[in-house]
């Protein structure tokens, strides 16, 4: 019970609740000698009760005016879900279709397909905490891990604006992992990387990423939106001279992820349907038991205060008509 009021200054009105203690609020009738009247315990009790009623009525009104409410409460529950960071590629090529062309009426761009399917995905994941990070030449912090699905949707919708520069995946991954710092380890922690290209990661960054993935126990899903004709993540080089990170960044990034030591799954999507399948898989797999906090919104108690006060006022008014007539 965490009670709070909207207007603390209104509580000074509680001083008025002391008034009934000094005054019975009843008409006095003249009596020749009050000592003649015998002591009557019942009367004393009734008068005391009425005074208490008045005190409570005044207090109720004052608390109502002050806006008494119960503050937002949180309750820990156990459900199924995950902490997911969506790491979205904002490089310019995402604005092309899966066929590598500028989008026209019939084909949607990779970014549009990803946006549409991610929007659905977020809708299905009710208990999850979802955060959003983006990267192009540099990483962008977009939305912290949150249960507010509207906020996540707003961030996904904003990727409709034209894409930015190049693909710098290592910095993006670093930022995505940083979302899990200072978060309790419960359920699964996922980085969902959605990209259409890869880039070589330098040695220092590789070291750091390995360390961070292990430290934060993050599982990685990579949805690779493959453009027709471009090298895929499972392609082996035909020529041994091409067997290096510079020529085949996708394959090498995949190899690096495999060697991370943390669970990793890659999907190569060549069409919106394949992308849909990949997202459905993740939706099914990532439902580990998870502690999550359910928020109970702030509850207004002023209505209750007013009701009690109104009831007591009725009582006091009714009792008025039973006063001694003379």
């Amino acid at each position: 019970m965490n009670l709070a009021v909207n207007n603390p200054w209104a509580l000074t009105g509680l001083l008025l609740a002391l008034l009934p203690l000094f005054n019975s609020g009843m008409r006095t009738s003249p009596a020749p000698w009050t000592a003649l009247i015998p002591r009557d315990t019942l009367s004393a009790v009734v008068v005391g009760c009425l005074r208490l009623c008045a005190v409570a009525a005044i207090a109720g009104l004052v608390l109502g005016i002050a806006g008494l409410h119960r503050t937002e409460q949180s309750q820990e529950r156990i459900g199924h879900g995950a902490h997911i960071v969506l790491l979205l590629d904002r490089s310019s090529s995402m604005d092309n279709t899966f066929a590598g062309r500028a989008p026209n009426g019939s084909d949607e761009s990779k970014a549009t397909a990803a946006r549409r399917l991610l929007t659905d995905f977020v809708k299905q994941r009710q208990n999850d905490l979802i955060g959003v990070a983006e990267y192009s030449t540099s990483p962008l912090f977009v939305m912290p891990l949150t249960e507010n699905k509207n906020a996540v949707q707003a961030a996904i919708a904003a990727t409709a604006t034209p894409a930015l520069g190049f693909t710098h995946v290592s910095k993006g991954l670093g930022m995505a992992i940083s979302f899990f710092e200072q978060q309790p380890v419960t359920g699964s922690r996922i980085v969902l990387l959605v990209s259409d290209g890869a880039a070589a990661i330098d040695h220092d960054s590789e070291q750091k990423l390995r360390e961070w993935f292990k430290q934060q126990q993050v599982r990685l899903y990579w949805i690779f939106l493959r453009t027709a004709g471009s090298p895929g993540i499972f392609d082996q080089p035909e020529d041994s001279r091409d067997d290096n990170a510079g020529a085949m960044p996708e394959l090498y990034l995949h190899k690096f992820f495999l060697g991370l030591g943390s669970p990793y799954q890659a999907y190569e999507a060549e069409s919106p349907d394949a992308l849909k399948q990949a997202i459905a898989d993740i939706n099914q797999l990532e439902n580990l038991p998870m502690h999550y906090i359910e928020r109970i919104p702030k509850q207004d108690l002023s209505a209750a205060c007013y009701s009690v006060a109104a009831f007591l006022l009725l009582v006091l008014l009714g009792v008025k008509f039973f006063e001694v007539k003379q």
Partner: protein
Amino acid sequence: MNKALKDYRTWCLLLAVLAMLVLFLYPSKQQKTPTYNYTFIIDITRSMNATDYQQDNQAVSRLHFVKQTLRELLQKLPCESKVGLGLFTERRSTLLFEPLEVCSAYTEIDTAIGKVDWRMAWAADSNIAKGLLSTLEMLQKSDSSLIFITDGQEAPPVNPNYQADFSAVKGQAKGMIIGAGGLQAVPIPKFDSLGKQTGFYARDDVPHRSTFGQSNLDPSQIKGYNARNAPFGSEAATGNEHLTALHETYLEKLAAESGLAYARLTDLKNLNQALQNPKLATEKVVQSDIRWQPALLALLLLSLVYLPKLHKFRPLFRS
């Protein structure tokens, strides 16, 4: 019964009960309150790192001050207002998220503003006019008002021959340009790849003119002019582009061209005032709680019943 009606206390209680009846019948009133829908686009180019704002007696960077002021402003916006966030660098801006309702998504918006960093820039030039134009085009379909926060420092300075043309968006655009920074020129801090400051940009570190296209000067006045090989002449350009100050006249000119308003950021109060421009507000009908009015009346009436009798205190007032 008659006796009871002759007592003023009965009447007070009766009126108090009536007041409570009114309270339960008409708990709220429809009221028009202004709400806002802003998309803040923050300039994150290097010049925004210049430290010419003061906060708690400490020099802070323009970017830091802008972020801090926006976070404070967020607390002052009425519920149902919406805030979106984007970043500007190079010649365009990007939107991080579309406008979100401020009361339900306060923490999210606040965290996202707090995380804005100059290192998020995806490219390093700064052409504010083009950036503003592309942002206005991007937001054309949205009903959000653009709040473009910048210091007006461009790198390299724009050649007057190649200026952005705002005629397509003028009149449709709604919003403001907010100028950040001081009018005194200050050096721009330089950082290494780990984010540590390694000094300031020197005169030789920055371009002092744009060498794109044709010069805006008369060829006969350019020393060493050659139409094909040296359209800008043979002399190296010099200037004070390594120092930065708020280019207020330039921003005012851009604002006039694009049909936006202009204000300078000095503190929260002045930003709040500037943004409460009635042009940017939409009146929304909200139910406002008016239960306190009848409740206060009932409280006064009830207190009257139990007010101590004055004649008891009379001896105190007699001298």
